[in-house]
């Protein structure tokens, strides 16, 4: 097997002071090949965003991590500050959820786009401006020349997110970390922005780790999906397969809770109980308290184990699969 572009193995993270350390991530493992896309799906607080941040080492104060993060063979946690800056500047770019907060409000769009080129690579100001203008045209912003002299408050959220995407791709990174890039946008803008990201990413051959709580959106964009719950990955599978035949009860429950145009219901299906944070999880399966199929052996620790082309963290996955298949046959009869 060839070396993956990004490999995360047994990544754990705790946060807080000496007295009360809280677990945020538990044994997260991912791999992503060059030019491919992986969707990281989960509810708020499941640790998907922290996983992306710990790859770029944008950690909150007091955070401690364990485990391996390798990018193109180099171990990211072991890099010197200067080496880490080089990786951030040229190899891995990040697009954040809220462009309004993540773009400096007192500087112009042109300044935002060109500063990395000028300060990191010593590109001449005029050339950087030309490239910024081209970048804005690539993400479909009208009148790129005028945009360069505007300030963030003069642009809509959708336009500003395009600016952030243009900025991320100007450095031609090999990996794009997209942290809910469309969550703050309205639905029509969402699909436009997603389409632009995907198109440009393909053109540049950039791999993408796409973080979202929208399972369907992730399935439409990504080659592979990983579902996170309470700071750990509970299921990983090729996108189409994960959506059509989920192996983990949590994934199945999430899929059942999707609103559908065809099936009209008086009340939408929900996952019973409330999502727990990683530090609230006991030693057994973290989803067991909410799982309709939980039994005695679910109280023991669960490992992420291969099952066909997928990986799943559930000791009853095979039984449940068979049961589902039988129910399906009955329904056909």
């Amino acid at each position, binding site marked *: 097997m060839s070396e993956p572009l990004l490999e995360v193995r047994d990544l754990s993270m705790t946060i807080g002071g000496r007295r009360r350390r809280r677990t945020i991530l538990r044994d997260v493992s991912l791999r992503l090949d060059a030019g491919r896309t992986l969707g990281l799906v989960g509810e708020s607080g499941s640790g998907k965003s922290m996983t992306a941040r710990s790859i770029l080492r944008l950690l909150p104060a007091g955070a401690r991590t364990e485990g391996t993060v390798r990018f193109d063979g180099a171990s990211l946690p072991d890099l010197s500050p200067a080496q880490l800056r080089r990786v951030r*500047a040229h190899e891995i770019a*990040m697009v954040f959820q809220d462009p309004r907060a*993540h773009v*400096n*409000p007192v500087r112009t769009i042109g300044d935002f786009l060109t500063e990395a080129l000028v300060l990191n690579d010593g590109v001449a100001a005029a050339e950087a401006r030309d490239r910024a203008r081209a970048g804005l045209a690539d993400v*479909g912003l*009208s009148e790129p020349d005028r945009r360069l002299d505007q300030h963030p408050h003069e642009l*809509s959220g959708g336009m500003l997110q395009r600016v952030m995407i243009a900025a991320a791709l100007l450095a031609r990174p090999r990996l794009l970390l997209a942290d809910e890039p469309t969550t703050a946008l309205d639905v029509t803008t969402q699909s436009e922005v997603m*389409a632009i990201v995907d198109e440009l990413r393909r053109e540049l051959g950039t791999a993408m780790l796409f973080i979202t709580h929208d399972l369907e959106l992730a399935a439409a964009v990504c080659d592979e999906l990983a579902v996170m719950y309470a700071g750990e990955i509970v299921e990983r599978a090729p996108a189409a397969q994960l959506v059509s035949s989920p192996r983990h009860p949590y994934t199945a429950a999430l899929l059942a809770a999707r609103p559908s145009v065809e099936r009209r219901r008086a009340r939408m299906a929900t996952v019973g109980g409330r999502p727990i944070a990683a530090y609230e999880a006991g030693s057994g399966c973290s989803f067991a308290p909410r799982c309709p199929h939980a039994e005695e052996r679910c109280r023991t620790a669960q490992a992420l184990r291969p099952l066909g082309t997928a990986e799943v963290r559930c000791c009853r996955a095979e039984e449940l699969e068979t049961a589902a298949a039988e129910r399906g046959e009955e329904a056909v009869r």
Partner: protein
Amino acid sequence: MTVNVERNLSPPGVDLGRFPSRGRARALALARHLGGLVALLLASSVVVFLSLQLAPGSPESVLFGQQQVPDAVREAVRARYHLDDPVPLQYLNWLAGVLQGDFGVSIAYQQPVSTRIGDAAATTVLLAGYALVLILLVGVGLGALAALRPGRVDGLVTLLTGVAVATPTFVAATLLLSYFAVELGWFPVYGPGTGLLDRLWHLTLPAVALTIWAASFVARVTRAAMREQLAGEHVETARARGLAERHVIRRHVFRNALVPITTVAGLQAAGLIVGTVVVDQIFQLGGLGQLLVTAVNQSDFPMVQAICLLLVCAFVLVNTGVDLLYRVLDPRLRAAAGARR
């Protein structure tokens, strides 16, 4: 997946982003600002003029006191100070003079007010400017240091500025005077000095006295503002893009913190105008403050009017300057001004 058709967000024929002539809107906003400024200055001149009309005594009673004088002399004095004109006419005469740089004749010195004020104003402006430079250097420097070096340095700065913020200017001035001028003899005890270097030497202790409280205040606001920016999401973006820390601090932390820093620095600059009156008196610098106190004691009406008007004008101009600086520093305020048009 292809995206070519729907790229432009605006519907055809409607350009959502274009504002009619930004330059013109900005010029209008500036004109409105300046118009307001002139109105404010005129209003203050009325208040300054009338408040002295209400004060007890009149120029003739000051000049003659209890002595008996011939009616002809009394008439001459009343004519010279236009005391028989109706008050609005007196005001207009005074204002017309002021606009030509003629503040009338000092009753106590029997000289044009403007000749007495010139030197004093120069001393005061020099003192306030000197103090402002110190306040900005020390205040912003200490605040930035505390923000960027959490732990011991931050603790020390917070402690020092905490004590200094609780020290009134007149206490600081007296302590500085007794130690550095009287005890150690490093600085002169009083007087404005002659020549620029000698003047600066004479003004150092007064300027330091004005600096201590104000700089501490500026330092605390600078620290808080920079801490807030350091935790900001746009700073995370800058770091995620691999910018060197010095660029992150300068372009994204300090630059954004300048908005609140300018607010307090502007307040301090305006406060200096009053602060110089106190320090001027303690160090006997012969500035506007000392001249004002003397003129009040002598009931020298034209002199008091002139100095009050100058102080008010300085205050208004400083505030206007800060207001204009805001718009340069924070583009969102420019938009707010434009939206009102």
